[in-house]
């Protein structure tokens, strides 16, 4: 290695000695607080016993299920064919919402498996449907509106 190159290497690594830790620390501090896992990626859970409503699409089935006493309900998402996009977010449609962030985030779907998302108590009879949103490409994949706009639960 010639002297000029040795000097260049030294300059680069002196710069890296400052830049790399700075970049790592800044990126680490910017890591957002994440929702609890069970919201975005619910752990394995079983279907509740009572099927309230069901919508079948080409690639998936959406069911609203409730417990026997209808005290708790869940949204059941069953994959019939693998998604062609890596992952989706599921939102409860909120009347009057203009942008996607104003709807109520329910959880996240990967390309395989079935999912059960507990429906929050606040959704109640206001929920008219659900939105499937591709957050990578920033586009709505599907909007599912149940025929009976009220979800039967107390």
């Amino acid at each position, binding site marked *: 290695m010639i002297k000029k190159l040795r000097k260049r290497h030294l300059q680069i690594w002196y710069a890296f000695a400052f830049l790399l830790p700075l970049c*790592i620390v800044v*990126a680490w501090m910017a*890591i957002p607080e994440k929702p609890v896992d069970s919201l975005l990626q619910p752990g394995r859970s079983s279907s509740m016993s009572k099927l309230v409503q069901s919508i079948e699409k080409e690639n998936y089935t959406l069911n609203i299920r409730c417990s026997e006493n209808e005290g708790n309900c869940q949204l059941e998402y069953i994959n019939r064919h693998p998604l062609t996009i890596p992952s989706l977010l599921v939102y409860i449609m909120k009347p009057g919402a203009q942008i996607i962030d104003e709807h109520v985030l329910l959880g996240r779907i990967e390309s395989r498996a079935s999912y059960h998302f507990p429906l929050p108590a606040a959704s109640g009879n206001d929920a008219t449907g659900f939105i499937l949103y591709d957050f990578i490409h920033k586009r709505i994949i599907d909007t599912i509106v149940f025929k009976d706009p009220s979800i039967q639960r107390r």
Partner: protein
Amino acid sequence: MSVSYSAVGWNRQKKIYDWLIFAFCISYLVIFISLNLLFNEQVTFETLLIRSTSTLAVLLLHVILSIGPLCRLNKKFLPLLYNRRHLGVTMFCISLVHGSFSLFQFHGLGNVNPFVSLFTSNTQFNSISQFPFQAFGFLALIIFFLMAITSHDFWLHNLSPRVWKTLHMFVYLAYLLVIMHVMLGVIQYETHPVFVVLVAIGSGTLIILHVLAATKEVKKDNEHFDLKQNGFVYVCDQAEFEEGKAKLFCIDKERIAVYKHEGKLYAVHNVCKHQGGPLGEGKIIDGCITCPWHGYQYLPHNGQSPPPFKEKVSTYDVAIEGTGVWINPKPYAEGTETGGATIQHQSSEVNKSLLV
């Protein structure tokens, strides 16, 4: 040592080196995939492939970047330097798998061209956690691609060593891009701090190694030789030389390697014509100065490669007065014959009339 193109000049060392790389990569991928499947049965094949190749590529990149300074600090690491380019090409291939699958997974199967989608799907440049990190990875991959396709000596000669080396110095920019790609990408989605710690350890290790090696070299470069006479500079005593080995002296602008061979001292330019290896850290094999990096050879008395090879390095005048060794730092043209300086055994006669 030929400018005509031949794919790879295989020899036993290269085969062993490459088999070791292959075995390591396969073992790593198998272990990574197995552990992931053990702890997360829901993981998809695409995710496994993307993550296993990405972590392997980053690991290889750290190994590659550490070889240079390790060799400066301890010569026992020199065998790793011998075929470092094979490691580099392997790392590029693995990165290419990672990049291709990621591009397909996240930007394919849509209406937009995947390469356009890569740069336009996320434009949140004002957010650190949502920053379009994938572009960093893509740019790093382009740099690795250019380095991989020009890694052969054919390109070293045809691009000229200066252009070739400038291109390959972009590995440092690529490394910075990779770190940003990781920190603004997967690290933003993983809650466990172990990933940040691993990145910090990797970067920190490289910084320490490079700075230590560079500091050691700077000390050598800053050695002063104050005793001068008639254009010659006193460097050391003749007793300090070992047969077949050299001592290095940095006089004026560059390093000069002085070898002891068959009772004489010869001085040549320290920089190998191949890839700038330190000739002074090699040894004489079969009567030729042999570069420790890739084995390029030069005759000590004229700095020429033995026929049929054509590389040449500059030579210098050496003189011995008493037992003191003197060097004229003004180089002769590359390949110029010099008589060397005979090592004095008894008398203190001037070996070469440096006083003239």
